[in-house]
Structures are given as structure tokens and as C-alpha cells.
């Protein structure tokens, strides 16, 4: 087995363990390359099926192509696709693009808050109807006790401390100082009422591994990751007001891998294009509050 086989094996094992142990389970799909690889790994784990609902938090500031891509594959792969949103903040325009919030606060409203209440079932979830090709409000209101998230340890400091199965308390808070032990591939699959567990199948993958696997498996990804001829591409995808493209000539997956291995990006952090990380406290402050 080569290193990709080993990474795949561990992720598949984690996904199957989550599916076995959590009766109310969902997977977050951000449409980005990492969670798309994770979705692909679920198809590996479950032999072509995805028996877990996929949840997308729609900030309505996502690059439009991402939403087209999401809905296309939701239908093609027969996914149980859902989205949630902070309709109050959007209606009241309490956002950074509207000039009524700083970047961190905007993230907190449109992502952390929306996520928290979508997972708990307090706010509506919209589920794709495979017959009508449109989203309808879902009747299910049960809280998810297991949430599968595609974070990687190499992305940023706080993520390097994560467990594969990471508990969150009643208020969604991550107690980084007192995490459960995890060894011999036995994970925290028991949880007290009211708490939930975040499951991280991609923890050991690096950005380069992700692209190598996309190449090997021929996984379709959003074209925004590639240079379309203007000499720019996105390395990390988020909301358009806060995500900057990078200068790059890479038009194909192998060219991206080459760029990461030996080229200009070999020593630059992936999330350097994400403006919210640079503000005070950055991602770690967001993550303690429930951000992924």
C-alpha cells in the first residue's frame, strides 16, 4: 500500500466507524476540494452510496459556480443534500459585505451561528428533491449527534490538535485542553445527552495528498481551483468578499501538485488567501465558538 492507500484506508475506517456508531449523523460539504475528497471517500466506504445526509451552510456570498457544482453532483450522485442559513442575519444585512459587521463577526453570523442552529434542528433545513430538482424545507428536526468535517491537521495550528472523534459540549464548545484519549483506532463514540461529536476523517491528509488523490481517482472539482487563462486561481474557496485568488499558471491537477511540491507555493500556507484568519484571534477564536 502506498501513502495514498494508507490515508484512504484510515479515512474509510473512520467513516464506517461513524456510520456504525452514530444514529443521527451528517457530513458537512463545503464544496471545496477537501470535503469533496471526503465525500468521495464516503462513496468508497459505502460502495458507491452515500448513506449520510450532506449539509452545506449557505452564506449566500459563495462564488456562484460553487452552488451550481453542488447541485449538479447532488443529483448525479444521488445525495441526500441539505443546506441551512442564517436567514435573520441575511435579511437584516448584518454582514461584512453589507458593511455592518467586521469579517470575524460576519463569519460568526453566517457560518458558526447558521451551522450551530442547522445542526441542532432549531433552524430550517432545506433538502433537495430529486424528482423536482429543487430544495424543499425538510421535515426532520432531530439534532445531529455526529458531524463529519473535512478539516486537515496541516491547515493551521488549532486544527493540528484535533482528534479524529472530537467532542463538543452542549454549547458547541471545544475544550482543547481536555480532549479524550484516542489510540489503537478506538474512538470516542459514546457521548452524553445534549453533546455531539465532530468526526475528522481527513486529519492526516496534507494539501498535496488531497490533490494527489483527486488526480488518482479523477474526482471532479470546481474549476475555480484552476487557472482559466488569466494567470490566477483559487487555492482555498470561501465567500467571494473574503477569499483572494493567487497568481498561478496551474491549469491542471498535475500542475497544481507540481506547484505545491517544488514550485512557488511549497512554503506558503494554504489559507493565506483567507482574510478572516488574519484578524485578531483569527481562526482559533472562531473554532472555539463552533466554526469548523
Amino acid at each position, binding site marked *: 500500500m502506498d501513502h495514498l492507500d494508507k490515508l484512504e484506508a484510515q479515512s474509510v475506517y473512520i467513516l464506517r466507524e461513524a456510520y456504525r456508531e452514530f444514529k443521527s449523523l451528517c457530513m458537512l460539504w463545503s464544496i471545496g476540494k477537501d470535503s469533496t475528497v471526503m465525500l468521495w471517500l464516503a462513496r468508497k466506504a*459505502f*460502495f458507491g452510496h452515500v448513506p449520510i445526509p450532506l449539509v452545506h451552510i449557505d452564506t449566500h456570498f459563495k462564488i456562484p459556480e460553487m452552488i451550481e457544482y453542488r447541485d449538479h453532483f447532488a443529483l448525479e450522485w444521488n445525495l441526500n443534500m441539505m443546506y441551512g442559513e442564517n436567514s435573520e442575519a441575511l435579511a437584516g444585512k448584518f454582514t461584512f459585505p453589507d458593511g455592518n459587521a467586521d469579517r470575524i463577526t460576519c463569519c460568526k453570523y453566517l457560518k458558526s451561528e447558521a451551522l450551530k442552529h442547522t445542526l441542532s434542528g432549531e433552524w430550517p433545513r432545506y433538502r433537495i428533491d430529486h424528482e423536482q430538482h429543487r430544495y424543499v424545507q425538510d421535515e426532520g428536526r432531530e439534532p445531529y449527534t455526529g458531524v463529519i468535517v473535512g478539516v486537515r491537521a496541516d491547515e493551521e495550528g488549532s486544527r493540528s490538535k484535533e*482528534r479524529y472523534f472530537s467532542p463538543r459540549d452542549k454549547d458547541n464548545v471545544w475544550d482543547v485542553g481536555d480532549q479524550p484519549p484516542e489510540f489503537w483506532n478506538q474512538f470516542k463514540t*459514546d457521548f452524553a445527552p445534549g453533546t455531539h461529536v465532530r468526526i475528522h476523517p481527513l486529519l492526516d491528509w496534507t494539501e498535496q495528498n488531497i490533490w494527489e488523490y483527486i488526480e488518482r481517482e479523477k474526482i471532479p472539482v470546481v474549476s475555480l481551483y484552476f487557472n482559466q487563462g488569466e494567470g490566477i486561481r483559487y487555492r482555498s474557496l470561501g465567500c467571494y468578499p473574503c477569499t483572494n485568488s493567487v497568481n498561478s499558471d496551474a491549469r491542471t491537477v498535475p500542475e497544481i501538485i507540481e506547484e505545491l511540491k517544488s514550485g512557488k507555493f511549497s512554503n506558503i500556507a494554504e489559507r493565506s488567501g483567507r482574510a478572516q484568519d488574519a484578524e485578531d484571534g483569527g481562526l482559533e477564536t472562531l473554532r472555539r465558538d463552533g466554526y469548523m
Partner: protein
Amino acid sequence: MSGRAQMNIVIVGHVDHGKSTVIGRLLADTGTLPKGKLEAVRESCRRNSKPFEYAFLLDALKDEQAQGITIDMARCFFKTAARDYIIIDAPGHIEFLKNMITGASRADSALLVIDADEGIKENSKRHGQMMSMLGVKQVTVLANKMDLVNFSEEVFEKLKADYTAFLSQINVTPISFIPVSAREGDNIASRSERMPWYKGYTVLEQLDQFVSDKELEEKPFRFPVQDIYKFTRSNDDRRIIAGTVAAGSVQVGDEVLFLPSGKTSVIQSVESFNTAPKVRATAGEPSGFTLTTQIYIRPGELMVKPSDPQPEVGSRFRVNIFWLGRAPMIRQKEYKLKLGSARATVRLAEIWNTLDASDLTSSKSKQQIDCRDVSECILETTRPIAFDTTVISEATGRFVIVDNYEIAGGGSVVENLSAGESLLQQHIRDRESHWEAGLIRTEQRAEVNRHRAKFIVFTGVPGTGKRVVAKALEQCLFLNGMSAYYLGVANIDRGLDADLGSRAENGGERLRRIGELARILTDAGLLFITTIDDADDYDIETLKALNEPNDILVVNMGENGFLRYQPDLQVPHLDVLAEAVKQVADHLKSREIILDYQI
């Protein structure tokens, strides 16, 4: 694709002996730091007017910086010419032992850092022993801070001799000792000119000398069944046995045996998504199989080949265990054991010996296993599981213990002791020897009631109509003047068992209470009827034992999970309810439990 080999290395050792500095150095000297990281840390040091240290590179989290110690394992990535490394920084502080274990268990090899100036400390020893418990076989000891002892060969040799003596007591032989100064960079990436007496590898050279995993493929085939999938709603009729091959290999056409159930079948296909067709699966591969026959098995069984050396099956075994829980492990409590894909209710039966890992003193008199103790003890599961002793196979011989939702301990099985008297047998013997009877004899009761007592259990997979038949039987017997009582299991959940909490964790205790209840109600002369979903050999044997000296009648409906146990009566799923009731009542009559009856 790069195709480069990858290895996980853990860095352990006592607090402040310099683990983070070693890692910071490795990252900096191999040029694998993300651009900007080094500058950011230097800038932060300048702002806070403190001298730059390589250890700060790892202090990515705020509360770490506040306390100045590593609280959790952190991962960083770097590469040498030979391969890619994931370095796991494990905390040295005693409070964070569980984080250290989390980090170390993922490693193929370990660097154990000891401060040459301060010498061997409590966690130098404890971590050495945990490497042994966790099964990390390749350990290199770094004598750090050699700059503080004038790069003295004498100090290094003394430390080497003392620590080797300690490790030999716990059967650990380190691969090498390296004198280093992580702060100054001596013998990390480049050879130190200040220690010309040292002729061995630098740390980087040593890392490249470590070898990657052991040959699991050559071992007997072991496949812990993680789950059974059937995605019928997506128009897929395959019934797939899913899991990861723990050891050995299997191919299409091989005969397979499931333990503990004892069922057998033959591999029909190896299933996968988006790969070339497969006929074989080997150690480490996540796999799925279909079988030539439709046998009923559950997640948690161990699939093996009958032609291979067989694993053990038992419910009582001698183990070595380490405890991490805040609450001690005690005898009166039920815990959950997870071994491979198996889950079982477990109790601590006996403690033989407890070791204080910091000074290796042992105690034979301890009555509980406290946090950070390492004990040799006997565990007993309520139902048998399949396992290997760790000498044969580590993946199927190691387990964790869950206490109050948390993994609180881990260990390895040393010996199967299932031949001895079980806790259940001891309990029943004790109960019966103290049973206080009233003045009415069993025969008298039967004579007045005009029927004998019986514990009647309906079982079979869910959805076969067990409860409907059970209730109709109660009604029929009652209307014929007999003392019959039907108990809905849900009533127990909300009543008698209301203190037990989650179902999985207390399966053994729930079963015991039903058995004890049956013992009392049959003693009262009742025809006591209840239903149990999907009982297996173990469930029925336990109920039968608990109900003794009284009688049990097992009625199965539909498919069942039994292998050894022959149900007294097999009732097919009947359209006519009266027919099913009649079958059971006729059986009772033929056994002279009841006299005549009418439906």
C-alpha cells in the same frame, strides 16, 4: 504522484526536557517551515521582549503559550531525502498523559528526550513504559541539552547506562542513544564538532534508519467485521460484510469462519468502488465481501479462515491494562470494552498486580486501578468475544475500556481464562445457597394452580410478530383459568431499568434483571411470558442459568441468531394468529406444563 514513503514519529519525554525545541530545530534545519512562520514567531518574541526559541514554533495555541507547556499532541510535517515524516509532539506534563498516549499510539517509532543536565525524571520512565505498552518498538533516546554539561562524554555514558538498566526491566531495548543540543543544533541535522567522541548517527540520519511497519500480510487472516451493509433503497441488493483487514489475506473462494458465532461461509466477491475488479484483500485494506450463503452475522464478529491458526473465544481473560480515567476502575461496575470491532460489557474480576510506572514498584494488595496505574488483572465480559493474545496479533489483542462515555483505559490480552468459574456462575451459586423459601412447596402451587410454572421467551429478528403472539398466548392461558403474565420489555426500560441509562453500555445488567425477575415470577408459580429481540446463544444461556432451578421455554419466530442453542419451538411467521398460539400451547401441554385448554 510522489509515491514517497511516510512515517509517523512521536517525541516524548519529561516536561521541559526540550521536546518542542527538538521539533522546532528539525523543522527549521530541514527547511520545511511554511514561509512566514519563523518570521511571525521571531516578531512575536520581539514584541514581547523575550529571546526567540525554536520551541515557540509549535506553540500554535494561545493557552499553550500562556502556560509554557505542550498540552496536546500536535502534528507537524517535514521531509528528508529518504521520506516524509509526520512528527507528533507529545506533551511531557503528567496531567496530559492521555494526550501523550494519543500521539504515541499513532507512531511507528519514538524519540525519547532526556535532559542530560537534569537526568532521568518520572516521565522519562513513565513514557518509556508507555512506549512498551502501546507497542512502539523503535525507540531512540536523545540526551538533550548537552551544552549545559559541557558536551561531556562521561555524563552521556552515565545517562545511557542508567536508562538502559531501567528499560531492561520492562523489556524495552532502545535502538540508540544520541547526545544532542537542540537549542544549538548539535547532532540534530548536522554532526556536532563539539562532541567528536560521538560516532553514531545524527537525529536526522537515525530517523531515516527506522523501518516501517511489520509484515502483517504473512500473519493468519483476521477481519473484524465492522458493519454489514445492504443499500436496498438505492436499488443495490448486495449484502456486504465491511471492515478493514487486520492481518493476513483472503480471496474469492476461501472458506471463512465467523467468531464467536461459529458460522461459516465462502467468499463470493471482493467489493470496492472506483477500482479495478478485486479478487483478494490483504492486511491494511478497507474491504467488503459478499458470501455465497446468506448467513446472519452481526458487526463485532471476527472473520478468520478455518485453515489458519485460530483465535481465542472467551469471556474471561488475563490482561495488562493502563488506566487514564479520573475515576478509578472498580469491581462493582460495568464498563464497555472495545476490541477490534467487538463491543462487550465488561467487569473487573480480579487485580493481580499493580505497577507504579514512575518507580516500577509493584503492589499485590490494591483493590482498584487508579489513574496512571498499570495493572495485571482479570476481566470478564458478559458475552464471549473472539480475540488473539497480543503475542499472536496486536490488532485483535488490544482493547480499550469506556467509562462514562470516555475511553478511560487500554490494554492487551495475555491469556484466555474462560475455563474458570464465571462471575455469573459465582453469583447464581451464591444466590441459590441463600434463597429463602416460603412455606409453600412448588408441587403444592402447581396442584392448586392446575399448571406448572414456566418462563416462556419469544425471540427472533425484529418484525416477526413475537409480541402479538406472546400477548395472545397470555390471553389464551388466562381465559383458560391459568396464572399467565406477559411483560413488555419496554416497561422494564422505563421502570426497573430506569437507572441504567444507555442501552449498549448496560446490556449485561439488563439481561440479568430479566433473568432475576423470571426466577422470582416462576417461583411464584406463574407462566411468565416475555420477548427478546434477536437473542443469541449467550443471551438464552444466561437467562436459563439465572432462572434456574426453574424451567425456561424458548420460542423462536423467523430467522434467528442461534448457533449451538436449539430453540424448544420454531414458529414460522404465521398469518393465522390462533395457529401460532395453538403451537405453543400444544407444546406446553405435551410437556405437561398445562392441562387441557381451549382457544
